[in-house]
């Protein structure tokens, strides 16, 4: 679906909630996968995805595209839903595969093998929520800096700079002196 067509659907859905269906059909799988990567459970992911679309529908009258794709707005709502879901928990465990962290281990110059990965697990766990979110979006979801900026509502350059700062923090956590 092209941007102009998508904006037409958004304008229609603002007037008539039943016209939201094409947007729902188009983005459902992407949002489901995005949530599933964090929640890990299918049933829970389905509930949170449904809740994400409901919140998006309710917020639609106030939504302005501002040149960003609608999907970026949905990702933002989904992150908020996950945060709401996790707020009463003491600890959240996020599973990542070797493939997902390969880019990160290369960037950090970590040696291959379990030892390096265990260190990375600990270092990631020391990051605050905003910084951890940035790393997840970049390496777990494989987003470009432009996409990252769209989801976080910042410019591409700012997203790049923030990511480099977080990587620098991670390096200090991984250094032998830390």
């Amino acid at each position: 679906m092209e941007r102009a067509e998508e904006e037409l659907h958004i304008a229609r859905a603002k007037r008539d909630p039943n016209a939201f269906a094409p947007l729902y059909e188009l983005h459902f799988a992407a949002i489901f996968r995005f949530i599933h990567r964090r929640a890990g459970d299918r049933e829970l992911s389905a509930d949170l995805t449904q809740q994400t679309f409901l919140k998006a529908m309710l917020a639609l009258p106030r939504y302005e595209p501002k040149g960003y794709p609608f999907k970026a707005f949905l990702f933002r709502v989904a992150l908020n839903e996950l945060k709401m879901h996790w707020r009463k928990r003491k600890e959240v465990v996020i599973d990542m595969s070797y493939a997902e962290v390969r880019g990160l281990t290369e960037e950090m110059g970590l040696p291959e093998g379990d030892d390096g990965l265990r260190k990375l697990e600990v270092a990631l766990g020391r990051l605050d929520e905003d910084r951890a979110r940035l790393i997840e979006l970049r390496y777990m979801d494989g987003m470009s800096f432009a996409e990252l900026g769209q989801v976080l509502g910042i410019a591409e350059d700012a997203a790049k700079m923030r990511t480099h700062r977080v990587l620098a923090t991670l390096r200090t956590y991984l250094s032998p002196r830390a």
Partner: protein
Amino acid sequence: MNRRYRISPEGRQPEPTDAEIARYRDPKRLVYNYHKATRALHRKPLYKDPKAFIALLIIVLITWLITEVASDRHVSPASQDQLHEQVD
């Protein structure tokens, strides 16, 4: 809330396929929940509905009248003695 990361060869349970994800899609439920949520948001409070307001007012007035009548009829024992003394 603490975040903990667990890095393993396969990561989490395998990602569902498109067909599996499609089974969770339910646009009808979404629209139903939307209407339910917006109805709850825009529900008029009772006192803002003219009919409900008049009904509430009548109930309050009747209750007040009943309590007034009941308190008039109820004469305390002390005041009853005073009445007897006046009659004597």
